[in-house]
Structure formats: structure tokens, C-alpha cells
């Protein structure tokens, strides 16, 4: 899957918000891409862009999303509907609201199967039961309503829904943000297991670097609508190239170093309504030079498989 110069803008009354601005990256089948960054930096919008469900007034204005040799940006709504759920699936952030409160758990799965496959309801129900087994949820609960499930169980159902039709790509938008750490670990393990079983490509959107470290093969760091660093996972942790990545890694709390005060990045991301000239991180960057506030750096490959957008790395 390849994303090329993608731009998704929100056309609000106050002006154009460039939530995803000129983002380019490529991932291969079976890989996990971790997208990290602060709140409001465009990670989720990027995720929604790929499945073409950017909520209005947002719109993809330019760029290409090449998926299995096809440019999704040009695909019609009808074509997209057939891809969604079947080839590309999505897991949402809040499991408490992502299931229809008036539909039984089983009906959710059955509906998904019947939307894309011509099978009888009985067959679909059978498949739903098998899926529940795989998710570690008792079969008897197939007729329960979502409110009878805990948050962790609902998220397992959501993941099951995403994987039910064996898609090629799953976009998980902060799948564990609303859960406590124990449940989070369970969910992550489940995702890892299922990912290996199904050999699927995963885009994991999160602001939790710990999760990314555990799950991702590649990492994309986003800042103010831009992809500022894109790299293999391990080298990025050992030697972050972009000052923002470096600061982000320093800001992770460490339970063993209780004496150490938590580091944070001073300032806040720029307003995406009128992005500043030059590098968008420059005002908060401790290494910023004159050129940083004058010219915008481009994403360039510095070492093999390591891309960064920073003037200091030239």
C-alpha cells in the first residue's frame, strides 16, 4: 500500500484546515505501521482518508492512495463500499459507542458478513460463533446486547468485526486509548495473534509510543499535518532523526525513574488554519536554526528506509 502526496483539508467557516498535508509513505503486506504524534496532528484524518470516510467538511483534495494497484482517491462511493469491511477494515477508538446499542452482538457480525458475502443467515451465524471463539468470548453471549459487555469485550468484538472477512488492511484508530492497561495488554496480544494468523497489514494510530514500540515494524511520526519522520521501528528508537521524535521519546514516562521529572515539549502544535512558514516544529525545536523558520524541509531518505524532514539532517 502506498500513499502519495496526500492532502486532506477541512473547509471550515474560519478557513481551510490542512489536517493532512503532503503525506507520502509506503508499507508492504504483513507490515505494521505505527502512526504517532500529538492530538490534532492529523493521524486520525490520515486513517479516515485511506478508507475515504473523512467526515465533512473534510475532503481529500490531492494525492494518491494506491491499494492493490488501485487508486482509492479516484474510486467511486460504490466501489469504496465494497472495499470497506471486506478489504480494508477499521477499528475505532471508543468501544463504548462503536456498537449499535439496539443490535445484538451476533447481529453485528452477521450483518457484516451478509453485506459482503452471499451466504445464508445460518451460515453467517455459524461463522459469527466461530469468530467469537477466536476472540475468547463465550458463544452463549452471541445474543447479548452491547451494554451487557465490558469495554474490553466490546473492543474485542470490534476487532473481530474488522477481521471477520479477512481483510488485507486494518486501520486501528487508537484502539486501546479508552481501556485500562490490563485490558490494553489483552487487546494488543489478541491483535498481534490475529495479525500473524491472517497475515494482514496493520496501520496502528496511537499517541502511545509504548504500544508502537511493541507492535510496529515501521513508524511514521506526524506533526501538524506533516509526516516528519518515517522509518523502521528499531533504528528510530535507538537514534531518532527528527528533533520532534527525540522530544516525543523523552516525554514517555518511565516508572523506574521516579526521581526524574517528566519531560514535556514546551509550546503546542501550530494552528493548522494558518500554518507558519518554514518548518512547522521550528518554534518548539531546541536545535532550530535560521533556515528552519524560512524554508520548509522536505521528507528525504537519509539512510536506507529512513526518511526525515529536517534541515539539520542534510
Amino acid at each position: 500500500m502506498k500513499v502519495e502526496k496526500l492532502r486532506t483539508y477541512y473547509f471550515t467557516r474560519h478557513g481551510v484546515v490542512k489536517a493532512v498535508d503532503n503525506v507520502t509513505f509506503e508499507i508492504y503486506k504483513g507490515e505494521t505501521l505505527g502512526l504517532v504524534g500529538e492530538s490534532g496532528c492529523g493521524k486520525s484524518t490520515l486513517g479516515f482518508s485511506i478508507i475515504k470516510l473523512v467526515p465533512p467538511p473534510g475532503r481529500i483534495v490531492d494525492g494518491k492512495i494506491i491499494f492493490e494497484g488501485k487508486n482509492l482517491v479516484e474510486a467511486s462511493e460504490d466501489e469504496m463500499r465494497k472495499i470497506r469491511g471486506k478489504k480494508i477494515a477499521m477499528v475505532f477508538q471508543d468501544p463504548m459507542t462503536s456498537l449499535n446499542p439496539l443490535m445484538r452482538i451476533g447481529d453485528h457480525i452477521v450483518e457484516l458478513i451478509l453485506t459482503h458475502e452471499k451466504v445464508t443467515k445460518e451460515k453467517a451465524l455459524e461463522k459469527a460463533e466461530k469468530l467469537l471463539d477466536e476472540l475468547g468470548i463465550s458463544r452463549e453471549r452471541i445474543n447479548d446486547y452491547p451494554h451487557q459487555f465490558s469495554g474490553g469485550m466490546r473492543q474485542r468484538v470490534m476487532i473481530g468485526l474488522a477481521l471477520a472477512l479477512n481483510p488485507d488492511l486494518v486501520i486501528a484508530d487508537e484502539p486501546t486509548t479508552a481501556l485500562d492497561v490490563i485490558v490494553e495488554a489483552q487487546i494488543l496480544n489478541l491483535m498481534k495473534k490475529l495479525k500473524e494468523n491472517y497475515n494482514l497489514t496493520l496501520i496502528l494510530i496511537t499517541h502511545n509510543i509504548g504500544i508502537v514500540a511493541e507492535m510496529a515494524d515501521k513508524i511514521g511520526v506526524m506533526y501538524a499535518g506533516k509526516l516528519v519522520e518515517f522509518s523502521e521501528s528499531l533504528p528510530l528508537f535507538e537514534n531518532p532523526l527528527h528533533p520532534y521524535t527525540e522530544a516525543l521519546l523523552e516525554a514517555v514516562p518511565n516508572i523506574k525513574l521516579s526521581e526524574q521529572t517528566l519531560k514535556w515539549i514546551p509550546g503546542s502544535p501550530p494552528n493548522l488554519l494558518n500554518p507558519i512558514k518554514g518548518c512547522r516544529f521550528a518554534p518548539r525545536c531546541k536545535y532550530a536554526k535560521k533556515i528552519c523558520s524560512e524554508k520548509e524541509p522536505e521528507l528525504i531518505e537519509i539512510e536506507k528506509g529512513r526518511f526525515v524532514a529536517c534541515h539539520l539532517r542534510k
Partner: protein
Amino acid sequence: MEETEKPKGILVWPIVKLASLTKKGWPGWTVLIGLIIVISIVIMTILAPYISPYDPNALNTGPIFGPPCPAHPFGTNHLGQDMFSRVLWGGSTMLQVALLSVLICFAVGVPIGLFSSYIGGNLDKVISLIMDSIYAFPGLILAIAIAVMLGRGVVNMALSIAVIYIPSYFRIVRSQVLTIKEMTYVEAARAIGAKKRTILARYILPNVIPSIVTVATINFADAVLTAAGLTFLGWGVEVDVPDWGWDLYYGRQYLPSRAWWIIFFPGLMIILLALGFTFIGEGLSEILNPRLREGE
């Protein structure tokens, strides 16, 4: 279904079903009480021709302005008509009008609200504007105006009441859909490739129904009152149709001469009927929401 059961079952089944309402706690009781009131009045109206002691329109069945006594339990009016017979007969118009107007509102207001807010944009703005301008009118006055235009009769009364109520349905459906279509589960439905039709029918409409049912029962209660009001003002049914509204209209003139029974009993029936519908609505709105269901 019930029909295939033993003959005894047909009679027992509804009672068992109703009794099970009490297991749902207080809302169940509220619905049950409301149902008992409404069903009693319906049965009373249906049986009126067989059980009323006098013809409701027969004059001089007893003394003029006779207070309640064993022969005329609810007294007699200025024409010597038996008020008890008139009360038994007088609900029929109101019930028909209420039922018909709710059906019309449901059939018109809900689909318009659903599509208008789901599609959004300028269409939604225009429809909202029309609905709001109807809503801004004082209800009874608009109903009178429409009733005057259409003339007397049950269907015309129902229509004029429906017109003032459609905006209520529209507004409640529209605002609910606006909230629900932003819910993650609707987005999730879109993310699994569900069709627009499916999303509306399976994800949005069922979540709107509880609010509509509440509006519908309040609509029932209000329709009863408006129907009474229209008849009271002379734009309901013909004078020879016994109706609680007519009794109120004529009876009020004799209240100063202390003939309280002429308006008391029809008035009480109107209040009871409206109360019954309100009880059903309040209870149902809690029961229909699975998140508020107790003991499951």
C-alpha cells in the same frame, strides 16, 4: 401465534402478557395503569350502545338539570338528556380522531425528519424552516383555522390536529438523527461498507423509535384535548353526535347555576383518557430503551 393456541389461550394470553409488564418495575406499572385506563374507555365506548340506559340524544329522560340520583347517576342536562348515557357514548369521536391523527403524524413526520436530517444540506434547511414556522403557530388556533377550512368531521379533525403535530415529530426525529448519525457505530457501519438504506433502517431508525413513541403518546393525549377543544368551539363533529366536547360546551353555561355534573363527568373522562395515554408514553419510553431496562 396466539390464534393457533387453545381457545382458552386467546383470552389468557393478553392477560399474561400484561401481567408480565409488572416485572419491569415502576415503568411497567405505569404502562399497565395507562393501558387499563385507555382500554377501559375504549371498551366502554364500544359497549355504549348495549349498556347505556337511555338514548344519548333522547330529550327529557328525566328532570331538566337533575343532579345525580340512582336513575341518572351522572345527572341530566338542560335538555333533560341522561348524562351517564352521554358519557358512555361520547368518547368515540375523540378516540377515532386521536388514533387517526397519530397515524398520520407518524406516517408523515418520521420519514421526513429521517431523510431531511440524514441528507442534510439545503433541503434540510428548507424543510426545517417550513416545519418551524408551523411549529411557531399556536397549535389550537392553527387547528381551528384548518378545521374551519376543511369543515366538520372525524377525518378533518384528525388532519387539522396532524398538521400541528407533524413538526413535533419532525423536530424530535431530526435532532435525534443529528446526534445518532455522529455516533461511532454509524461511522463503524459505514466502515464495514453498509448501504445508506441499511444504515437508516438498522442503525438510525431503531435508535430514534423510543423518542418517537414518547412523542406519539403525548400526541395522543394532546389530540384528545384538541379534539375536545375543537368540538367545544363548534368545529368538531355535528351536534347530534354525542361528544364530551359538546357536553363541555353546553354545560359550561350552566356552571353558574351550580349544575356542575354536566361538565364534571365528561371533563373527567377527557382528563382520564389523556392521563392514560401519558402514562403509557412515560412508561414505554423507559422500557423501550434497552440500556435502561432493569434486571437483565
